């Protein structure tokens, strides 16, 4: 199979999920005797695109144009579909990021392709791709077969392994970019970053605070622990609904579904909506003074006790370990 991977960059930095998608695309190509071709879209992306060979891309293409410097849903979807057609791609892969989830459905319609969003597994059985994707925020998993000639899959970040680079580089080949004004019907005119904040959907470590923290003023210790671990701060729905933390941090069925390596739930009881959003984390730590809290049922390690004592001690102990 010919696999086309749309490898997302932001600020000329390839996203980790882009590397994961390239590595996964290569694995699919190897299993089916095909080729993995990576595509990077933007302006001035040549150098970063070149490094995708190290993650398994047989070839690297770039759509490099001033009109593509800022993300445009319509233009990116068109280019992905046009390149997939020109390359006769059987499968199009990309990360299920804010950008991937935004443009993949449009690219799929253009390609008359079936779409499997936010996949957590992708294998080949009898020469056919079988994708697994969570539904009901992870309360159930579905196996998906796509019956169209071209198939589009978005891959949940942090689930597939990117591995480490072999160090190989490729010389990216430019694809021609011909965009009309209509193709640029949406265009990003600016971004506002929550300064220095890591997003829960991308973080490898998340420290989440719940209502048991009693008030927004007590999230300082959560931020500190997350900072020492190089992770992101998460929040339960109760905390967000109470206005203690912004909605971007909400983990759960009406927030973000996350799968970090380490999820530390502090004073979170573990409502079913919350568990659905985080129980696929690789390791879960629960700190709660209620030994019957449902969060302990999904936790790998738990401490039954007072978060106000345990979290600062955990921060200190982690600092010691990491030599910070």
């Amino acid at each position, binding site marked *: 199979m010919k696999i086309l991977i749309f490898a997302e960059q932001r600020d000329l930095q390839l996203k980790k999920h882009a590397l994961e998608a390239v590595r996964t695309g290569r694995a699919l190509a190897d299993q089916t005797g095909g080729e993995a071709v990576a595509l990077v879209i933007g302006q001035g992306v040549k150098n970063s695109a070149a490094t995708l060979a190290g993650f398994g891309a047989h070839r690297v293409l770039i759509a490099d144009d001033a009109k593509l410097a800022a*993300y445009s*849903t*319509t233009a990116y*979807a068109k280019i992905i579909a046009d390149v997939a057609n020109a390359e006769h791609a059987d499968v199009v892969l990309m990360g299920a990021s804010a*950008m991937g*989830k*935004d443009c993949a*459905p449009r690219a*799929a*319609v253009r390609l008359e392709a*079936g*779409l499997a969003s*936010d996949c957590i597994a992708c294998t080949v059985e009898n020469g056919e791709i079988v994708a697994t994707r*969570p539904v*009901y*925020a992870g*309360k*159930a998993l*579905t*196996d*998906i077969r796509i*019956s*169209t000639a071209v198939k589009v899959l978005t891959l949940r970040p942090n689930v597939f392994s990117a591995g480490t680079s072999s160090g190989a580089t490729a010389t990216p080949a430019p694809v021609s970019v011909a965009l009309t004004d209509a193709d640029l*019907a*949406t265009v*990003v005119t*600016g*971004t506002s*970053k*929550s300064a220095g*904040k890591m997003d829960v*959907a991308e973080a490898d*470590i998340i420290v989440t605070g719940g209502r048991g923290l009693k008030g927004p003023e007590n999230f300082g210790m959560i931020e500190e622990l997350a900072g020492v*671990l190089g992770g992101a701060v998460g929040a339960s729905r109760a905390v967000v609904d109470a206005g203690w933390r912004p*909605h971007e941090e909400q983990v759960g069925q*009406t*927030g973000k579904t996350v799968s970090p390596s380490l999820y530390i739930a502090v004073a979170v009881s573990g409502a*079913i*909506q919350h568990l659905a959003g985080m*129980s*696929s984390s690789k*390791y*879960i*730590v629960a700190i709660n003074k209620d*030994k019957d809290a449902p969060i*302990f049922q999904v*936790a790998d*390690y*738990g*401490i*039954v*006790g*007072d978060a106000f*004592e*345990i979290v600062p*001690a*955990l921060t200190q*102990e*982690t600092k010691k*370990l990491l030599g910070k």
Partner: protein
Amino acid sequence: MKLIACINHVPDTATRVSIGADGKSIDRTGVTFVLNPYDEFAVEQCLRLKEKNGGEVIAVSLGGDAHKETLRKALAMGVDKAVLLKDDSPRDSFAVAHALAEYAKAQSPDAIFFGKQSVDADDAAVGPMVAELLGMPSVTVVVKMDVNGTDVVAEREIEGGREVVATKLPAVFTAQKGLNEPRYPSLKGIMAAKSKLIEEIAPAAVPARVQVTAMRKPASKNPGKIVGTDVSAVPELVRLLHEEARVI
């Protein structure tokens, strides 16, 4: 302005999911269905745009008769008209998008709103697919928007921040929590909604592009280890995370 809110009827987020007899869908027995939480923001945004600019709001839902309950909620919130694209058979996201796009095309709306995803299939695909089918721009996961004539400046949530997107109507938007505070239906609205007619249309069948071959519950985890019951357990927890789990 002519505004369309595409809404879905989904299991309440407090539902404990169990797998149905077909092994491909959930067991719906005893499950409470509600208006998809994100769709409330879509309906509210339509109502606010109408209040400001005048016009009409149509709520449309694809599904069986049960979806009328959710359409009545939209009527109670204040939409002018409710339409059921009546089809009880399972549809993939493209087949849903196709039916909605066909309906919308005939209406020539200024804007079409969705919730950012349905909390059942979690595809987040139908909105942008409808936009592509109609040749309209789309902005997803919108948390803020300003409409000035046909010019729109919208903010969408991205990883660790927001993205400001400029586009023009007619366009498709998918709403994220934070875009607005959905109103509660008034008692008067609820009573009036009961007697309103819900238009029924039979959408054309569309071949599925994606098949669910199996549905299962995720592997349940073995009960974890309670490392301790006070602060003295912290060094052992850190050791386990470092040496056993190797995550720090």
